[in-house]
């Protein structure tokens, strides 16, 4: 297997699998959408083409059969209903798994499950056996007449454009489908080089392309139909037998790997391939760094301009630099952005499968798919979102009969939305299900021993909803294998917190629930509270900071060897950061210093610092590997005046003081 070609195939196949994932579910909603059907068909066909080229038999088997089923659907012989969709989706999963295995380095795929293949065959044959036979007869009699022809004026030797391919596909649609019901992989039809091409010499890309196209079209028409592109292929030409041409072709074309995928793919991906470049994210980080420095230089220049009273020309130049730098910074930020569609794309399938399994009817609406956010965030958000959407489908939306009884439409709706809000992204999952009952939640909390009845009753509704995010809390009466094991919501919460985000629950009993997640646009920027000992700045992640007040010695007690501060009837352990960060600043009397109350997980702590310098949004920079091992620091950053501030890692800080 040629590794280069395989890699190209995988890149393309992965994209196709992503597309198909969405398209298949859409198709179930709109089975009569011919464009969508063609797109799905093409998707399977392209994967099959690539797999065929590389000889990945298990993949070919499944794709081929799936393709056959869609052929039947296109001819109106089979309907794409939920039953067929289940089988197709299973086949799709096999394909998707195979691609994933190949991507992760496996080269030998396991044999296919015969049951699935038979089911696919059954759909193809099933209702339509009779028809197929008559069609086959027709095809046989028509053999000599059927020709696929490109529209006039189209140069068959050049690249096939989308339109041309479309035209061919449509032509083919009109032709009888004699061969598609055959479950076996057909023998390779003969390929022929265009006239004037010397088959012994180097095969050029164009020639290779032409051969590939021929081969593709042969695949379409398979049996005996005569092709007229560019010459009838039925005439045997000995030196261009596929056995000779095929093994040679991949080798010759290897330097330009984009030729490798079969014709249709080439046509459809050609435009995008040329307008994008793959860049290592580390390189982007480097650029980000330099831009950050440039911003600092600009800031210094801006200050100089006002203090030094420079000439008008100079100040114009500085103003210009100011604009350019700002634009540059935004552009560089944008290079790291990806549309949230990347995550959302998987949800139609998730919801569809779950709904079918649970016997519910659910519409999933996606809003704001084009909202951009940081690449790392897109990846990090996938798991929490899947969990929340599953929750909405499983616990939120009621069974159809319950919905009718409650006077709601039979079909439930789940809305997954994303929107930008200043420097944050707001993601929300809204369902029109049964909502949550705060009283039930309060009762559960007491039953599970999470708190006593008094405390529970003092919780307002919002706090009661938030109970579902505490560890060991599950309200589902019946534990299902979908959600409701009582691990999950707390995990979701900690994942979101890790991204410096927050999660908010709003629910109205009987009307539905909305979970809102707010995350920063990028992971690289962290809002912090700047604290200091003299010149030395430290940054505390702002999401953890709860409140700040003056140190007053009469509020401090020593309890069991630990200093505690009293705050609204609660005692909170107090740590003097100077003991660690500035030993020369350890003193008897801390009056005038500040106490910063922070929350770490579900515990709180008070940190005593000398000065609090306000909020600052900082770019997190890693400390080198020599300092990685030192606990208590999450990184470093460069402040507005060019000095370095260390970012504190609160769990690490507390650990330092506790042991």
């Amino acid at each position, binding site marked *: 297997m040629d590794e280069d070609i395989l890699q190209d195939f995988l890149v393309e196949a992965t994209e196709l699998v992503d597309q198909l994932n969405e398209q298949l579910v859409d198709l179930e909603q709109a089975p009569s959408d011919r464009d969508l059907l063609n797109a799905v068909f093409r998707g399977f066909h392209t994967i099959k083409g690539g797999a065929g080229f590389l000889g990945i038999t298990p993949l070919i088997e499944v794709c081929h059969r799936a393709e056959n089923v869609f052929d039947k659907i296109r001819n109106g012989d089979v309907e794409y209903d939920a039953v067929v969709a289940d089988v197709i989706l299973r086949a799709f999963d096999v394909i998707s798994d195979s691609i994933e295995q190949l991507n992760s380095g496996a080269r030998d795929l396991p044999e296919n499950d015969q049951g699935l293949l038979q089911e696919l065959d059954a759909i193809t044959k099933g209702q339509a056996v009779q028809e197929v036979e008559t069609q086959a007869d027709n095809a046989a009699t028509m053999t000599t007449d059927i020709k696929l022809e490109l529209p006039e004026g189209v140069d068959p030797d050049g690249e096939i454009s989308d339109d041309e391919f479309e035209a061919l596909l449509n032509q083919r649609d009109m032709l009888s489908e004699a061969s598609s019901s055959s479950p076996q992989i057909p023998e390779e039809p003969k390929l022929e080089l265009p006239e004037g091409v010397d088959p012994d010499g180097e095969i050029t890309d164009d020639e290779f392309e032409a051969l590939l196209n021929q081969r593709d079209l042969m695949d379409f028409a398979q049996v005996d139909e005569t092709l007229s592109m560019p010459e009838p292929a039925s005439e045997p030409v000995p030196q261009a037998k596929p056995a000779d041409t095929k093994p040679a072709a991949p080798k010759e074309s290897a330097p330009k790997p984009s030729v490798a995928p079969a014709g249709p793919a080439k046509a459809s991906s050609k435009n995008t391939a040329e307008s994008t470049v793959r860049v290592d994210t580390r390189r982007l980080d480097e650029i980000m*760094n*330099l831009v*950050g*420095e440039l911003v*600092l230089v600009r800031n210094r220049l801006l200050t100089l301009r006002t203090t030094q009273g420079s000439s008008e020309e100079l100040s114009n130049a500085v103003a210009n630099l100011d604009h350019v730098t700002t634009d540059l910074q935004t552009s560089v930020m944008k290079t790291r952005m990806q549309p949230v569609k990347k995550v959302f794309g998987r949800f139609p399938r998730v919801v569809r499968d779950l709904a079918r399994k649970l016997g519910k009817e659910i519409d999933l609406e996606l809003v704001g798919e084009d909202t951009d956010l940081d690449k790392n965030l897109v990846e990090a958000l996938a798991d929490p979102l899947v969990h929340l959407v599953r929750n909405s489908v499983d616990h939120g939306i009621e069974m159809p009969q319950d919905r009718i009884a409650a006077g709601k439409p039979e079909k439930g709706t789940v809305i997954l939305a994303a929107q930008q809000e200043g420097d944050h992204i707001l993601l929300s999952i809204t369902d029109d299900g049964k909502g949550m009952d705060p009283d039930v939640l309060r009762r559960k909390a007491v039953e599970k021993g999470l708190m006593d009845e008094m405390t529970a009753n003092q919780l307002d509704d919002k706090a009661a909803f938030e109970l579902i995010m505490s560890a060991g809390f599950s309200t589902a009466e019946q534990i299902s294998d979908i959600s409701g094991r009582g691990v999950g919501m707390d995990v979701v919460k900690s994942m979101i917190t890790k991204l410096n985000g927050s999660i908010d629950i709003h629910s109205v009993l009987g009307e539905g629930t909305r979970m809102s997640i707010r995350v920063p646009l990028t992971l690289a920027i962290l809002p912090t509270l700047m604290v200091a000992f003299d010149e*030395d700045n430290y940054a505390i992640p702002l999401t953890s900071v709860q409140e700040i007040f003056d140190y007053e010695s009469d509020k401090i007690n020593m309890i069991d060897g630990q200093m505690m501060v009293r705050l609204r009837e609660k005692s909170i352990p107090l740590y003097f950061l100077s003991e*660690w*960060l*500035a*030993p020369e600043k350890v003193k008897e009397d801390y009056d005038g210093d500040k106490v910063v109350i922070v929350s770490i997980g579900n515990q709180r702590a008070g940190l005593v610092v000398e000065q609090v310098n306000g909020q600052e949004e900082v770019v997190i*920079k*890693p*400390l*080198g*590997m*020599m*300092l990685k091992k*030192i*606990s*208590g*620091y999450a*990184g*470093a950053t*460069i402040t507005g005046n*060019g*000095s*370095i501030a*260390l970012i504190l890692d609160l769990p690490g800080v507390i650990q*330092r003081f506790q042991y």
Partner: protein
Amino acid sequence: MELQTALPENSGLATGLEEDSTYIGPSARCVLFTLQDEIYGIYVKKIREVLRVGTIRKVAGTPPHVLGVINVRGVIVTVVDTRTIYGMPSKPVTDLSRIIIVELDDEQTVGMMVDFVMEVKDIPESKFEPLSSTKENASRYIQGIAHYQDNVIILIDVDNMLMNFE
């Protein structure tokens, strides 16, 4: 050496210490610097730049050989005291002190505080000799020594030194 004997005009110098211009064999370009009174060398290809000493931000909790971190055009770089690593008493920063920014094999950058940076020299490879195993601990970070123009140059194995020194 064969090359030199082939050039008649150099024959007079061949017995003494060669000047750069007269040696044509393979040579290693090194940055030479001093610690105490000893001359050390680092291959130029390992060095990204040499900086004057600016503000070094101390980091609490670090081992003694780590002086702190500096900002090199937006990248945070750890600075180590090369004296401490070689077991010499550390000395206050002077006008001559420099930080040599080296790039390790894993693309990490580290700054090495040194007393004084002398020059960049091409040292004939024939002048290098591997170190006979004497002082176990210190020799771990020395690649070899070169006798060159009346001086002994100690060639540092920066990767080994900065990755392994505890």
